Structures are given as C-alpha cells and as structure tokens.
C-alpha cells in the first residue's frame, strides 16, 4: 500500500466513521454551495428573465425614416427586422399616421398591424374588443370622450385625399368602435385601425412613418442591433427607446449587485461555520493529534491530514451544493419569473472549486492550532 492510499483511507475513514461531527460542516458547505450556485445561475439568467418581464413595458426600439421627408415601405422594414434574431423578437408594429375628419374634427389616425401592436404594447388596456373586422377601430380614451364615442358606436370618417383642404372629400366610410384604448399616455389621443383599412381609405400603400419593435435583449445587444441595422439598411434610422432600455439595465445592475452581495455574505458565513466546526473538531481530537505526533507525525503531515479532510468535505459539499443549487434556482425561477432555466454545466467545477477554496481557507487557522498540540500533555493519563 502506498502512502497516498493510506492517507486517503485515513481521511475518508475519519469522515465516514465520524459522520455526525462532519455532517455539520458538510451541511454548512453544502448550503453555502447551494446558495452560491443557485444565485449565480439566477444571476446569469436574470437578464433573460427580466428582459421578458420588461417587454411588458412596450417597445424598446423604433425605426424612423433615415431622411426627413421620406417614408419607408414594408420591404425596408423587413430588411431591418431581419437583422434581429427571430428568437429575441417579441413584436413588430409598423405605424402610418394620417388625419381623418370625424364629426368635422381633425383626428390623428394610426394604421398599424394590430397583432404587432398587441405584442409590442402588452400594457394597452382595451375597454371592449380588439378590432377583428374591416372598418373596426380602437379609439383612444381622450378622443372618444372628445367625440362622445362609446364601444359599439358607429361613426362616419372622411379623408382628404390630397394636401389641399378643398380637394374632393370622399364620402367617408362608416366605422365601428371595437374598443376604447386606455394607456395613460399619448396613445389615448389617437384612433387606431388596421394598416389595410388605412391604405384603402387614404390611398397609397407602403408608406410608413415609424416602426415600433420589442426585442428581448440586453442593452448592449440592442446597441449592437442598432449599429447593425444602421449599417445594413441605410433607409432606416433605428433608435433605442432610452427610457425603457436604460431603466432595464439599471434595475438589472442593481439586482445583480444584490445577488453578488448575498453570495459574498453567504460565503463568509459558510467560512465562519466551517472554521468553527473545524476548531471544535481539532479540540475534540487533541488526543488523536498527540498520538499521531508521538508516532512521529510531522507538523506538515498533521496539517495535510486535517486539510485533506476539510478539502474532501469541501468537494463533496460543492457537488451536493451544485445539484441543490440548480434545484433552488429552478424553484426561484419558476415561482418568481414563472419560467424554467437552463443548467449551466460550467457552474459545477466552479462551485466545487469555490467550496474547496472556502473550506481550505476556513480550515487554515484551526489546522494551524492542531500543530500546537503537545503530545506529552494530551497523552498523560487523567
């Protein structure tokens, strides 16, 4: 038998046959490692999770026409959208604005892809239904009040087809209020209809003023997309909605530093717990240490034997912790963000390494004190 085998046999026997003592230390390490790997998993998953949450607050990117007068067409929009990873694209809503006359009043009308608007603006609250048929519209709350319109009302809307007021006004069409739009914002001043209705009534197709996009990506990724589109589709001037992207990254930074802080505190607590347990273990085993010394054990071998036990505990605790940590992260993710997370395999070695390091550090002082045991004193009969 080699010395290394005997070393392993001794330290595993100590851990296995003295279970109850070492269980406390193991538990501390496993809990520490669980929190560590759990929080780190969440730490890396939070941007994705929060990104999805933030998409509820509306578009975070818009396309404008690159030159002032020009409007762009759907094909250009498609080329711009193609630059964005389809997986990350939550919704695209193109908008075209025209003035209509209702009850002799000029009202701003927006033609859009209603499904796209629903996806990019999940916060829109509709009193009634989303339009589903031709000539059905959403009326903003303010405009509805101004015109005295309610859900289900039918009204006549007329267009001026040219620039001049005197141009022949068409006879207008009867449109139906499918729902009243409440957002608390400027959207309440508008009238929303499908793009096809608008193109039919206002003439001219494929003339868009602005496109709203909701993209589930970090602030940095969005910036990359912005540059990419700017470079590849010169007709589009992409802009990030700073209000949304910046508050998103601020919240993320705060959340991540919180996770970081909690992890650090937990690691320190683990270290204190392991150090306390190891100190108790060394005190409890003074006789054994004295005996080993009387048999000729050098300080170095005493240190290595106790360190060996500590590091083995650290390793086992780390393995336990990374398994439990994933379960913990999964639990948090499902309950807080209602979505599951993907396992980060790289986290296993990292967790084990950190547990071993933390345990090793925690063992330093107790193990040093083990070498100070005087065999003549502890082996004396009582």
């Amino acid at each position, binding site marked *: *038998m080699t*010395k290394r085998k005997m070393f392993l046999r001794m330290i595993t026997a100590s851990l296995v046959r003295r279970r109850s003592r070492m269980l406390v230390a193991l538990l501390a390490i496993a809990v520490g490692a669980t929190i560590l790997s759990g929080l780190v998993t969440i730490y890396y998953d939070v941007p994705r999770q929060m990104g999805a949450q933030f998409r509820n607050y509306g578009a975070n990117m818009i396309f404008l026409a690159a030159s002032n007068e020009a409007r762009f067409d759907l094909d250009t929009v498609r080329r711009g959208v193609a630059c964005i990873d389809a997986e990350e694209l939550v919704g695209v809503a193109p908008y075209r604005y025209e003035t209509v006359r209702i009850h002799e009043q000029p009202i701003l009308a927006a033609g859009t892809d209603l499904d796209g608007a629903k996806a990019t603006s999940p916060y829109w609250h509709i009193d009634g239904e989303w339009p589903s048929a031709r000539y059905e519209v959403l009326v903003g709350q303010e405009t509805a009040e101004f015109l005295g319109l309610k859900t289900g009302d039918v009204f006549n809307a007329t267009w001026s087809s040219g620039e001049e007021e005197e141009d022949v006004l068409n006879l207008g069409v009867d449109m139906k209020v499918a729902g009243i739009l409440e957002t608390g914002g400027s959207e309440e001043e508008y009238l929303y209809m499908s793009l096809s209705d608008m193109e039919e009534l206002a003439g001219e197709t494929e003339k868009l003023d602005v496109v709203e996009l909701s993209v589930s990506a970090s602030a940095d990724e969005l910036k990359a997309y912005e540059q990419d589109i700017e470079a590849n589709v010169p007709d589009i001037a992409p802009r990030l909605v700073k209000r949304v992207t910046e508050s998103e990254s601020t919240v993320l930074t705060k959340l991540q530093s919180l996770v970081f802080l909690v992890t650090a505190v937990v690691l320190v607590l683990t270290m204190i717990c392991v150090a306390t347990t190891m100190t108790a273990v060394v005190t409890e085993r003074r006789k054994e240490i004295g005996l080993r010394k009387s*048999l*000729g054990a050098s*300080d170095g071998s005493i240190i290595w034997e106790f360190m060996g036990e500590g590091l083995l505990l650290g390793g086992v605790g780390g393995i336990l912790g990374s398994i439990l940590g994933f379960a913990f992260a999964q639990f948090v993710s499902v309950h807080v963000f209602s979505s599951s997370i993907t396992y980060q395999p790289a986290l296993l070695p990292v967790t084990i390494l950190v547990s071993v390091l933390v345990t090793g550090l925690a063992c330093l002082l107790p193990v040093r004190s083990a070498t100070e045991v005087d065999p*003549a004193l502890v082996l004396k*009969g009582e």
Partner: protein
Amino acid sequence: MSLLELNNISKIYGDLKALDNVSLSVDTGEWVAIMGPSGSGKSTMMNIIGCMDKPTSGAVLLDGKDISKESAKSLTAIRRDKIGLIFQQFHLVNYLTAVENVMVAQYYHSMPDEKEALEALERVGLADRAKHLPSQLSGGEQQRVCIARALINYPEIVLADEPTGNLDEANENIVLDIFKQLHKDGTTLVVVTHDPEVGEVAQRTITLEHGRIVKDALNANFKEA
C-alpha cells in the same frame, strides 16, 4: 556502549523538581522496570527518554547521541525512527480499525504494509480482530493493538507507561507474556509500573522517590523465558 544514558538530568516545574539529578544507563536488550509512588517522576522520566519532553538540565544519550538539545522537529524524527510507545490509556485512533491503527505507525515511519501489520497483530494474538474498531475491542485487546503498533517499525527501545494499569489479571498476564517474548527476541524494554507483579518479572528494577533514584537492582527472581 549503552543504548540509553541519562547524565545528571533534572526536570524542574516552577520550584518542583520532578526529576532531580538522575543518572541511569540502559543496555541494549535490557528489560527495566521503573517503580515508585505516584508523583515520583516516573512519567516525567519516560517522556524525556521517549523524546516527548526535554530535561531542564543534563544530557540524554540515545545511541551515544545527545538528544537533550534537539529541536522539536528532530525529536519527532527520533520518536518515529527509534522509539515504540505504549500508554496506559491505549490511545488508539477511534475511527480506524485495529490493523489500520497499526498501519498509521508504518505510514509515518515508512510505508504502510497491511500484510506486515496483520502479522504484527497475529503475534499479539489478535489476527481475528484486525477489522474491528477500538470500540469493539476489550481493554486488553486494545492494549495488544497498541503493543503491535509500538513494535511494527522495529524500534530500538520500547517504552511502556503503566501498560497494565487499566487491565485485569488475565489481560495483564497476556501482556507480560508478550513482553517476555519481546525480551527474548532482544528488544530493549523500559516499563513504568505501580504493580509489584509487573515489576518483578523485569530483569532490573529502578525505584524513584521525589525525583531521585533510590534503588537500582537486578531482579534475583528473573528468569529468561
């Protein structure tokens, strides 16, 4: 040249002279019993011979080399290489089996060798208890494991402090028989004891009182086994 020589050693704790100018020499193969009342300095002397402690003054020669001024580190090395210790309280590692306890001594000395450790246990009549933990062994059996451990590295000198202090008559006799066999094989033995019966079987008896040797005599009744 004698194996062990104490030249005017004293051990002083505060104003207590645990050992007071003691001189003694022990030859290779000798079996010496150290007797005396409690507090007379027997254990103190054993600790100094066993390199677990240093005298306040005087010289300790082991193999002609003065060890009284050695560093703790080299004392550890001398313990490992030359000395076999047997204690009254056995002192086995409680989570290791009998054979593993013997192997611990091999581990620090040179190479663990399970076969050799088993043979050592066989010599003290414990072949069938090798895989037992100390808690599963009787006091006598535990002491025999200690003896096997003390002998495994062929030490130049075996020191036993009250080896039968915690044993009953039957186990005491087993241990004494082992000692007789060791003596026959040429091992140098120094045994501290209160027990006249244990003292009697030795070749030579030294009596301590108040840290001084008051009697040093060969045992008339001693017979080689």
